[in-house]
């Protein structure tokens, strides 16, 4: 082995430009793979965080009663249509048809037993109007124990004014866009009027900025007790929310739950199918880019090595005349491939790391004094390792043919050549 390693090393060192070319091919492939994967993973994680940060992975509701006709629903709706721009008949239907989960404490315990379930939190959710001065804004109100609801929505980190954890029964927490729209500030009082016709005054105890326009414009949070009375629900809840260890298990786990409970179970992956589809097409794009990078680098390396083997055919012949076995020659050229791969991987990792560091430094336009990074960069050892493993395998495959060719070379033919 020492002979083979020594010869391979000398070949690479004296190869100069050829060696640099092949090392660069591996390095570029590794850089591309690291860069693309980290970037797309970062983007996806960011989307997931922004989207799922405020969303439960699975929502469990009581099943809808028999559907009612639109006119039936319309006749029972007292909402003045002029001020409610986003009122859909679907939403009205949900509002009108009360389907509460009774005995939810027992159901929560059951759900917590499912493998993969990380958090279980029950909430009352309903539609209401926020009335401030002359403004009448349609919003969704969630009422839950702040401590457990926090594990679903993660609001505390997004508070830009006031407080969320530890709010009292008179308090409501709203998004900054809603506050702006309604012209209210921290500490101001607002009236909420539920679709059940209950109305009460609350103090704006906190304002949040989740970065999700929809949430910031139309969501309000309060305690479970307050919401139960706002929506006239006694002790019941309207939804049990789950967070999973792996959000992408949502369909599987929701199917398991459906099989055991008489409830309507919604997975975020079905409700936000477009995101999941977008992720899938991103994943296939990145796979293609990585495959092409590897393929291009492998072909480059194979052709350079073939040329180098042909250039060295005399040397190979003379080595064989001195007793070198076919296997030894095979090892020499395979080791060259391995050497190229290892140096290329090291270089690729360094360049990839450097590029990501540069990218990470780009700040996002600041809002409310929070300076965020434009790109979410996670230095995932699995991505770096995977890129190197793929590049090493591709390079070894690329050097296989040249090495075979070298090993099979007939010494008489090459020595005769003169």
């Amino acid at each position: 082995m020492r002979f083979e390693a020594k010869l391979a090393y000398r070949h690479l060192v004296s190869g100069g430009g050829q060696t640099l070319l092949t090392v660069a091919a591996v390095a570029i492939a590794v850089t591309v793979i690291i860069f693309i994967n980290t970037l797309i993973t970062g983007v996806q994680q960011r989307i997931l965080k922004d989207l799922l940060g405020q969303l439960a992975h699975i929502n469990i509701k009581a099943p809808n009663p028999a559907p009612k006709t639109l006119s039936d629903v319309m006749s029972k709706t007292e909402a003045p249509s002029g001020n409610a721009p986003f009122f859909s008949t679907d939403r009205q239907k949900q509002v009108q048809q009360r389907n509460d989960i009774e005995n939810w404490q027992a159901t929560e315990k059951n759900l917590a037993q499912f493998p993969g379930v990380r958090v279980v939190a029950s909430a009352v959710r309903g539609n209401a109007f926020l009335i401030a001065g002359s403004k009448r804004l349609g919003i969704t109100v969630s009422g839950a124990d702040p401590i457990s609801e926090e594990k679903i929505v993660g609001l505390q980190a997004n508070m830009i004014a006031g407080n969320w954890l530890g709010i009292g029964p008179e308090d409501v927490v709203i998004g900054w866009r809603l506050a702006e729209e309604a012209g209210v500030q921290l500490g101001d009082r607002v009236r909420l009027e539920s679709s059940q016709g209950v109305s009460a005054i609350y103090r704006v105890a906190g304002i949040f900025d989740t970065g999700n326009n929809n949430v910031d414009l139309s969501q309000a949070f309060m305690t479970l007790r307050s919401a139960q009375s706002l929506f006239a629900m006694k002790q019941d809840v309207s939804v049990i929310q789950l967070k999973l260890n792996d959000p992408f298990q949502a369909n599987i786990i929701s199917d398991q739950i459906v099989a055991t409970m008489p409830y309507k179970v919604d997975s975020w992956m079905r409700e936000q199918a477009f995101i999941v589809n977008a992720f899938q097409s991103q994943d296939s794009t990145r796979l293609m880019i990585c495959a092409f990078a590897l393929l291009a680098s492998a072909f480059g390396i194979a052709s350079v090595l073939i040329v180098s083997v042909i250039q060295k055919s005399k040397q190979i012949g003379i080595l064989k005349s001195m007793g070198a076995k076919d296997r030894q020659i095979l090892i020499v050229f395979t080791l060259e491939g391995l050497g190229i791969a290892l140096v290329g991987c090291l270089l690729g990792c360094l360049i990839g790391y450097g590029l990501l560091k540069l990218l990470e430094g780009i700040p996002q336009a600041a809002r409310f004094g929070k300076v965020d990074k434009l790109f979410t960069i996670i230095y995932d050892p699995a991505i770096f390792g995977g890129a190197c493993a793929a590049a090493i395998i591709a390079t070894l495959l690329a050097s296989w043919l040249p090495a075979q060719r070298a090993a099979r070379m007939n010494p008489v033919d090459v020595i005769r050549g003169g």
Partner: protein
Amino acid sequence: MTLTAPAGGIPAPPATPIVQTTGLRKTYGLGGPNPVEVLHGVDLEAYAGEFVALIGQSGSGKSTLLNILGALDTPTSGRVLIDGVDIEKLDSNGLAELRGQKIGFVFQFHYLLDEFTCLENALMPVTIRKGAPDPADTDYAKRLLARVGLESQLNKRPGQMSGGQQQRNAIVRALVNKPKLVLADEPTGNLDSRSGAEVFALMREIAHETGVAFIMVTHDDRLARAADRALRIEDGLMHDAQLGVG
């Protein structure tokens, strides 16, 4: 270094030859449209410590014979025994081992490895066989290099040496594994007559000193005359060469 040559100058042939061929035939293009038989049944013996010159017209089959003797090529029929081993019975690994242990080659071109120094090139056969040379090997290589006047060139690359020096380096490489048989195909063919004569003289002396059987192909009748024995290939057969004196 000791000389094995007795007082007479020509060593008495030992009982068994280092290399022996019987009825050696070689046909090129066998199975093709026009096969050519180059060797028509060559019988040859060479003994330890013997320096044999092989002459013949261009295209008479000298290189063909040498490649077969060196286990680089196989005969179409006939037998080749190298140090008592029938090469027909060896697979490609066995042939490689035989070449590494018992045979040294010197070609018309030095074929030194550009990536290695003079000393490393000289030690290449040992490196191939053992992985790395041990101190005794290095010592032996240095002594041989000193013997051919390369003691001051140990760390030079082939490109930094003269043609004669390169060829002397190649001769040391052929000897470093202490082979039984050294085959040289026109080793001086690429050198001017002065350094050619020097290289030839060295080879002959070292052959006698080390006791190897040395077979050298040459076109130069004067060199052939200085060998212990000269053979001529003609019409695919082996003859004792009749070389006029002078």
